[in-house]
């Protein structure tokens, strides 16, 4: 299966990544080679095999629905790029 630059651009858009025009051919070529590599799996017979998402088929524990932490807004927002009055600042979304 051959991958086109347009395929790569549409995946990049989903992933919120930008690809420079000058790099597009290289990115497409390497991306295509990785898809060729993983395409080997299509030859494996997996009829009736249950997909495995956790290596021990464990299910995640539930915790009691109780408050366990204090609010730490100031400490957590200290690492934010831009905050004001306890809010995260982003560019204007609605004019």
């Amino acid at each position, binding site marked *: 299966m051959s991958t086109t630059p347009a395929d*790569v651009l549409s*995946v*990049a858009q*989903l*992933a*919120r*990544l*930008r690809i420079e025009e000058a790099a597009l051919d290289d*990115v497409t070529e*390497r*991306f295509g*080679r*990785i*898809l060729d*590599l*993983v*395409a*080997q*799996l*299509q030859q*494996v017979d*997996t009829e009736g*095999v*249950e*997909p*495995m*998402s*956790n*290596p*021990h088929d*464990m299910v*995640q*524990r539930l*915790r009691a629905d109780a408050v366990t932490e204090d609010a*730490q807004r100031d*400490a*957590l927002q*200290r*690492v*934010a*790029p*831009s905050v004001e009055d306890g809010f*995260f600042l*982003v*560019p*204007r*979304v609605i004019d």
Partner: protein
Amino acid sequence: MSPNELSTATAVELAAALRAKTMSAVELTQACLATIARENPVLNAAITVCGEQAIEEATAADTLLRRGDGGTLTGIPLLHKDIFCTRDVATTCASRMLENFIPPYDATVVSRLRAAGTIMLGKTNMDEFAMGSSTETSVFGETRNPWNIHCVPGGSSGGTAAAVAAGFTPLGTGTDTGGSIRQPASLCGITGLKPTYGRVSRLGIIAFASSLDQAGPMTRTAEDAALMLQVMSGLDPGDSTSADIEVPDFRANLGDPISGLKIGIPKEYFSSSLEPRVAASIQAALVELEREGAELVDIDLPHTDQGIPTYYIIAPAEASANLSRYDGVRFGYRCEAPTDLNDLYERSRTEGFGEEVKRRILVGTYALSTGFYDAYFKKAQQVRRLISEDFNTAFETCDVIAGPAAPGVAFGLGTKTTDPLAMYLEDIYTLSVNLAGLPGISVPAGLLDGMPVGLQLIGRAFDEATLLRVAHRFQLRTDHHLARPVPTAVNP
């Protein structure tokens, strides 16, 4: 102890010296910091050094030791891979994205090792977001292998591996998603253990692929690895995937004989991908295990070749989801002067991530996208089960599996950076172990033209104790783990 002895001493030996008062924790910490100051400019294994804080911690440890208090690890220095969140100390994942990130909390691994009395010397270099096998994708520049500074240390935990090998510290932490502890341990001639998935809490470890990531010890001996694993292991309510299963005393039966133990040899691990001279070193190591009384049996792991394609769907898919949190809003890198919200997201991510990280996000996004999910992600999860079942079948006829940790010795800097697929092959013998969630360890098995080879041992789920016992018996019998590189500052 002389500086030379210090750089090869194990944590067990250093703990004895601290208790015998032949050395203080402050003196030990100063000696480690001096080695770092001397060697790190060439090796670039440590990217943050916490000198002052380390001396303060060592002073507190000395107070405990003088009173006869504290545990075995009290006063023993260590380095953490820069993927573990450390309160008030920069945690970068070697990425521009997190260059200025200072976590407000400690990872559980960090707090447990801190509570055990270890001294944090600093943080080590790694492949960006742990995606790589050479520690060349770090935004802080590559780490060099202390055995030959023109070669890579392996990766992604290459900074810790080089640091332990070069005598910066007796103990270090790493994480292993597809081989990132075992392959650099192999290439740097140290002992590196990836525990069973769920054995060690992932809380506060910057996530790469959540169903594969595990943290583990990187040390000079299996005995030290047992000591560290003891502290790192156990249920953590903060990580819903950490296993609620008893943690045995990993040192209790370390010295027990391994006679009668069945060691499975998968023929698929000795195929044409393996450098013939590495195969010969591994065969020689297997003979030593046989002389210890173990019985070698042939086993099959028929889906070995499918490990790489399976891994390179599942790991990027999980990474693409985990790394979606880096959006330039709540923490991490933000681009200059974004014009709108989408521009903020796209440019922050495009400028903040390196090439390999972006490549894996693209592959993962593709594998999870509408119309491709069944053909890629679901298919990979089905093959993952087949790989896991191969191991289950093998463990019906053996107790431990043995083979190489990597297909060769350390390779030259820059020789695989332009070909991602060549780099991916480095993990051919390690990543199936992550897919199956099993424990694996790499122990030194000799030198080839002065470069280390690693023997990998793979165990049943939650049976790290048997792995450590085999590794310890091997190290009692051989002296491969005692070999140390010539300091680069002496012989550049």
